[in-house]
């Protein structure tokens, strides 16, 4: 085992973990505020990938540049789902869970109908280019996606700490009744949190499609990882989710190197169960803190 091999694995894990961190932030935002386990979340990411692919295919637009517009489109796509979720009596988590399963089913089948089952990749000039730093290869596409993810997470941080809506969102996550009693429109905050969540998924999908092909069921590979990252960091905590995402990326990367690629997620699951047993509240606690 050489240092460059170790460095390579570490770099791979961090680059992957950055994207997971963004995805986990969106999961934790929706769960923290609405208390909904959204099984359709990774499918919104897939939609983001598909949309970015289509924009590139038809208009030659760059997915990383288009991340924000794609995110806005996905926020819009999340709006009807948020509306439907709000119609379920609050606190009926069973019903909400099935509802998101239904949404997941609808999105996946629509994708299957419109883009077909085979993976679609966007090839950009940077897709197969590498920086070489101290013997470590760093893929341009993954690095750009990582940087874009960091920027978006910083944006989310600013939103949650510096804007009235963001603070109202944290208050709602803390205690919806108290937030409502000081004039926060809880239903509107719930919907806003949901569409910001799906929007972030869309952004993440858009930057990912430069190095990962999109297919209708790719969300199924990601949804577990997103949940695990969030729980590891502590449900409802944005920095926790980001850290959890990074951790998951590292575990996967090292798991694939030291075991075999097929079993990379097994090491993740083992770590996850062990962590849950010793620290069920996650690494950071419950509250939605910025």
């Amino acid at each position, binding site marked *: 085992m050489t240092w460059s091999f170790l460095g390579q694995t570490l770099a791979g894990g961090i680059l992957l973990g950055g994207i997971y961190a963004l995805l986990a932030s969106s999961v934790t935002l929706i*769960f923290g505020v609405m208390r909904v*386990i959204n099984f359709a979340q990774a499918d919104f990411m897939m939609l983001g990938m598909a949309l970015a692919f289509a924009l590139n295919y038809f208009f030659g637009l760059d997915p990383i540049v288009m991340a924000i517009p794609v995110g806005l489109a996905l926020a819009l796509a999340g709006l009807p789902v948020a509306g*439907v979720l709000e*119609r*379920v*009596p609050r606190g*009926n988590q*069973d*019903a909400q*869970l*099935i*509802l998101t*399963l*239904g*949404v*997941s*089913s*609808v*999105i*996946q*089948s*629509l*994708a*299957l*109908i419109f883009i077909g*089952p085979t993976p679609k990749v966007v090839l950009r000039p940077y897709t197969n280019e590498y920086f070489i730093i101290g013997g470590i290869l760093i893929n341009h596409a993954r690095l750009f996606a990582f940087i874009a993810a960091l920027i978006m997470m910083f944006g989310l941080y600013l939103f949650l700490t510096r804007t009235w809506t963001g603070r109202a969102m944290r208050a709602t996550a803390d205690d919806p009744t108290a937030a409502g009693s000081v004039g926060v429109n809880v239903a509107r905050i719930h919907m806003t949190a949901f569409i910001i969540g799906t929007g972030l998924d869309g952004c993440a999908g858009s930057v990912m499609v430069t190095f990962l092909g999109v297919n*209708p069921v790719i969300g*199924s590979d990601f949804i*577990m990882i997103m*949940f*695990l990252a969030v*729980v590891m960091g502590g*449900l409802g905590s944005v920095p926790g989710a980001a850290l959890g995402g990074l951790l998951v990326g590292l575990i996967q990367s090292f798991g694939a190197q030291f075991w*075999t690629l*097929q*079993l990379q*997620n*097994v090491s993740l*699951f083992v770590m*996850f*169960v062990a962590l*849950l*047993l010793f620290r*069920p509240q996650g690494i950071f606690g419950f509250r939605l803190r910025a």
Partner: protein
Amino acid sequence: MSTSTDVRATFSRARSWKSSYIVPLLVFVAFLALMGVLQSNYLARLIALVIFWGALATTWNWVGGYTGQLSLGHAAFVGLGAYLGYALEKEFGIPPWYAMVLAIPLGAVAAVLIGAPTLRLTGVFFSLATVVFPITLQIFFTYWGYQEALIPPKPNNPYLYMQWDDPRMYAIVFATLLLIYWFFDVALTRSKWRFYVGAIRQDQIAAASVGINTWIVKLIVFIISGSGACVLGVVYAQMLFVVTPETVFGINVSLQAMVLCLVGGIGRSYGPLLGTLIVIPMTQALEAYFESSPGVAQLVYGIMLILVILLIPNGVIARLQELPWFAKRKAATSDGQRAARKSIPSASSFDATSQVGISARDADEIVLQVEDVRKTYGGVIAVNNVSFAVKAGQFVGIVGPNGAGKTTMFDLLTGFQHPTSGKIHLGATDITGLPSHKLARMGLRRTFQVPRPFPMFSIYQNILLGALAVRNRVEGDLEGACWRALDSIGLSNRAAALAGLSTPSQIRLLEVARAVVSRPQMLLLDEPLAGLDPAETNELIDILQELHRRGLTIVIVDHAIGMVAKVVERMIVLDNGSLIADGPPDEVTHLPRVVEAYLGTRWQDA
């Protein structure tokens, strides 16, 4: 088994013996007759599938519905059963009938391995922890090269090897299993276990406070559920003939089992069956109809799922029960409960509280001994080396300003938290570090600051739960004890009302009755007076004083020092985690140290 007969006698709502066992048997016979005349293979296969899913959803319902733990790991058992049957047949030529028997212990062992650690978690953490087990198994079975496990064909011995061309045979095997599971379901919902699992589903902390070992109850149900699913997996694999990790371990298997229950009505016996009858034929029909256009069937399925949830968020059964015919039946059963009440001697014929309280003791006997108890959170000292003893029959108040460590002290005494150092004795027994349900069983009972009734149970059932796990503590018959406890709080006329629909003061009284029905050694009340109006406060205090007069040892923790001083005979004052005063109320309230703690130093000179 006197307990379960008591419970049965009490509840006319439990289905009668005849409709519980004979009717399903008749349905089964009718089903066999139907299979005899059924011609269509397509229909027979559909029926087999429906019954398989109905049975699987039934096993899921025990865990996900009855105990309320939404497991997403159910596929682990199906898959293990499927591959057990495959492996035994392929490697040793052992017929799947034996595998069905072996699947019972295999499922049980797997359930212990999965359930023992994860059942300590609650809510979504449990769901997410369980989901990784089938996925991990799926990955391993793929890695080991079982992507497409073909059951070795044995065309000469279809019955021995369960390899029929005729899907009706599979339908019959599944139906037999379903019948067995149904009988188990009936037995469960007729026994006192339905109260245990119902209590756990509604409030695990309250369940522990009445002496239920929630982890063990959940684990036992999980084991039975896992074994049941594992047996089904063996037969399912035979019917599929080609087993892939995806079809038996895949997340969709677990989700499907859950969806079926949720659509039908989660936590009800008929729920999984009704859900299956709706969903499975629908998905099969959709797949057949849209065979040539991939994705459309799934699209329609998704849309229908969304619509079902929007229209009937609590499942089909809840909606059916709103129909006039069911409403009439429900009214009839509550009449039955009222009639049952009549058979009990009326409240006036004996002293209401005569059986409540402890057995006679020496007045000087120490019930609770607290020695040097300390609790720290990191650098914060919540309770600082506190020592005191409570004698039998005393009425003690533990008071102190907010942040004095009262709630921590209370949690330490009742086993909801454990001290960093020091010892606590109940009678002669060292109870330091014992879990709360054990303390409850030993006769140390509590109420909660924010009351925790079991809202979906009636007031009577709540009180019954107070005694059910500690049956040996109750003298005489359980039913009588419950009615006496009800009489002592004056709520006998509301016995059949749901606890969740009662007023806050009724719920607080209910908690007291739920504790004293078990004839505890000691009753601890956590801020019982908070939120009550003067009349309600007086009512509660009267009841407590009556219990005290009958010999019950009571410790009341509250910050309302003035009110507590009027009631108790001895007062312990905490401030900043330390014990600063201990004595009769009129002395303690005049101690400068106590005045200072409550009012601040500047009042000292006033």
